[in-house]
């Protein structure tokens, strides 16, 4: 093997290059300066993007990973640099996003001495990473990075943290790189057991009223085509989780909508009429199941899942196939009987019509004077026709966007699902645009959430990322206000905001923008935004006290989905 003597810092960059990294989101500081110094020499190969806060770097890496399927890489300094990543790590952990964060650390002899900007990175990142490692010797850097990429990207993906002491960054050693393809104690791809596939096929072939529950596992495994082949052959209606959104095109005849708390009426109400629920790479989160005791009461459950720890965690499966979902779907397809369940599918259409009349019509084509979030999403759809990537922050607008955004292509919704992180949207949109430079990236964000990471407008401006930011301003922390209205006697405790002039702020960052308050100006404003060559902030003043329905209240049964 060829070796050459280089510094630990250079080894970090060469190792990243070996793994195909060309973009890093980060923020420099004392303990990582040796690596930043070398980044200066590697500018032609690695694009380092300076965010305005390390949390922004983490979310940007997530957005990048989610749209591109590649690993998102972050680099930060020790102490506060590292701790600022926590929210991003926790978010990536819950949403199975492959990111690798590299933090500088104090010199190894100072570890544990409360040296300047020392913090226990291993300790705090342990519960929120798939794997983490502290490197104190330069020669261990390539191995750590190789292992990190293997672990982050295989099996159920997740975040990895690498903490490198400053002396290891300076030290020189004989560098060589070998990609990691095996870790003895780690089983990234459990072997598919045909026995269970056959049992599952049996249940599926004999089901009268099956429904598929499509999760992000399908996207992470790249199994969208296999899923469609399976659904179409078996004639099974498919509902998706928030993170499974866009894995099946919006207008596919078997797509019956979103699951869960603010999901569509049909899939929620039908959950307790189904005789079979087929979970495809999803984990029965409580936001999907509502009260578990009353979930799928008549249904047998088939669970296709790569992570054994998810099987029988929240819901007991009658048959589980623990394997990569793509393999499972390929294996089961020949065993599935061709079927058309027109009558069953028709019931979803009836449920949709019911929801349309009660909720959707008023959201998308309101007759009241004030603008609704729904109609803004509808206008974006009319303009983009499913070709854009949708990013959301967290709150009412997130649910409205996920419900109504039109998807043609997979990996087109990036949202913080498991952690529900306000402030995720703006940096994630930037990361997504970086990961999909040729796509139109549309961010829906609330007036609360945008202020959590608003400094990333600076990153967007500096990098001329052409993000279309749609700020749905209701002057409230809307989702919390909705709960206060419905469950706390309208006692609006600390949810009303006195907001800044967002357009002035955007302009201060060098980003163009416009505000629209009336319906007659909405179309033109959206056109102006999309026609503008560059980032644009469109603030839409929407009704202050709009609510998101349908809603399965926390702790309620999916059968008790409310429409008003």
């Amino acid at each position, binding site marked *: 093997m060829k070796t050459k003597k280089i510094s630990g810092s250079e080894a970090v960059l060469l190792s990243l290059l070996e793994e195909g990294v060309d973009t890093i989101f980060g923020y420099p500081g004392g303990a990582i300066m040796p690596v930043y110094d070398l980044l200066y020499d590697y500018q032609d190969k690695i694009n380092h993007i300076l965010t305005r806060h390390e949390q922004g770097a983490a979310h940007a890496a997530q957005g990048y990973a989610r749209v591109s399927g590649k690993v998102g890489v972050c680099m930060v300094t020790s102490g506060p640099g590292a701790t600022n990543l926590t929210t991003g790590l926790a978010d990536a952990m819950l949403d199975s996003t492959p990111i690798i964060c590299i933090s500088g650390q104090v010199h190894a002899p100072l570890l544990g001495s409360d040296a300047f900007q020392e913090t226990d990175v291993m300790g705090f990142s*342990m519960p929120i990473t798939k794997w983490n490692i502290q490197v104190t010797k330069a020669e261990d850097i390539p191995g750590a990075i190789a292992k990190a990429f293997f672990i982050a990207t295989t099996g159920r993906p997740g975040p990895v943290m690498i903490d490198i002491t400053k002396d290891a960054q300076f030290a020189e050693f004989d560098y060589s790189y070998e990609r990691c393809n095996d870790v*003895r104690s780690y089983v*990234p791809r459990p072997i598919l057991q045909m026995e269970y596939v056959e049992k599952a096929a049996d249940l599926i072939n004999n089901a009268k009223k099956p429904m598929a529950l499509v999760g992000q596992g399908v996207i992470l495994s790249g199994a969208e085509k296999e899923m469609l082949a399976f659904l179409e052959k078996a004639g099974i209606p498919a509902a998706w989780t928030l993170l499974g959104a866009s894995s099946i095109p919006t207008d596919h005849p078997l797509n019956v909508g979103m699951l869960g708390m603010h999901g569509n009426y049909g899939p929620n109400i039908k959950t307790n009429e189904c005789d079979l629920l087929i979970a495809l790479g999803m984990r029965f989160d409580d936001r999907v199941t509502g009260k578990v005791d009353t979930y799928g009461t008549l249904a047998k459950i088939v669970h296709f899942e790569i992570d054994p720890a998810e099987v029988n*965690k929240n819901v007991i499966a009658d048959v589980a196939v623990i394997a990569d979902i793509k393999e499972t779907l390929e294996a089961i397809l020949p065993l599935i009987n061709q079927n058309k369940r027109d009558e069953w599918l028709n019931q979803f259409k009836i449920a949709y019509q019911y929801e349309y009349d009660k909720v959707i019509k008023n959201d998308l084509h309101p007759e009241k004077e004030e603008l609704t979030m729904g109609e803004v999403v509808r206008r974006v759809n009319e303009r983009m026709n499913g070709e854009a990537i949708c990013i959301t922050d967290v709150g009412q607008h997130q649910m409205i966007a996920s419900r109504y955004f039109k998807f043609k292509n997979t990996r087109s919704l990036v949202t913080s699902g498991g952690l529900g992180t306000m402030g995720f949207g703006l940096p994630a949109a930037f990361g997504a645009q970086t990961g999909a430079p040729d796509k139109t990236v549309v961010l829906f964000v609330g007036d609360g959430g945008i202020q959590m990471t608003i400094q990333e407008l600076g990153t967007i401006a500096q990098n001329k990322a052409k993000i279309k930011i749609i700020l749905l301003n209701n002057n409230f922390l809307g989702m919390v206000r909705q709960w206060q209205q419905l469950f706390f006697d309208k006692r609006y405790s600390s949810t009303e905001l006195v907001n800044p002039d967002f357009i002035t702020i955007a302009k201060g960052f060098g980003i163009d923008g416009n505000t629209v308050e009336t319906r007659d100006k909405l179309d033109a404003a959206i056109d102006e935004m999309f026609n503008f060559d560059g980032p644009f902030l469109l603030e839409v003043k929407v009704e202050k006290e709009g609510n998101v329905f349908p809603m399965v209240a926390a702790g309620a049964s999916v059968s008790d989905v409310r429409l008003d």
Partner: protein
Amino acid sequence: MEEKEFTLIAFSENSIGLLNRLTIIFTRRHLNIESLTVSESAIQGIYKFTVVVKASKTLIEKVVKQIEKVVDVLKAFYLCEDEIIYQEIALYKVPTEAVTRSNEIEALVRKHNARILEITPDYTAIEKTGHKDETQHLFDDMKKFKVMQFTRSGRVAITKARRERLSEYLHKLDTEKLTVERS
């Protein structure tokens, strides 16, 4: 669901922080660890964790899966009391004066199948292996002699099943996972 005592055994690589990673799994579920023993297993370089916890069966099953999910853990499983042979060791220090004053302590040592490790003019060190209630019993019996120190180890356990599960697992490791092709 009813809580029971389980012995959870995990085999792992010898990596820094692993104990922390495992205890986090208990802490997150508000589970108290009754006892914990960590040492090198029969296979060099592989470490064995023996954890005693009180929990419901459904919870312990989930905990085992979460432990097994930890990258550096090779294998984890849980066992009920009737599936293992286990011991703890306890050490007691009593004043030698109390030993020589009467033959009561000697009688206790005999009765409890304990043994004397060391006698000095000041103290006598006694060792007893057994289950917790047994080592506790001896402690209670000796209390009146003013036990100067008492300490008890965590549990060590072997399974009644014929083969050690780890070797089985290590054997299967190569056959049970596919190599991952990455682009």
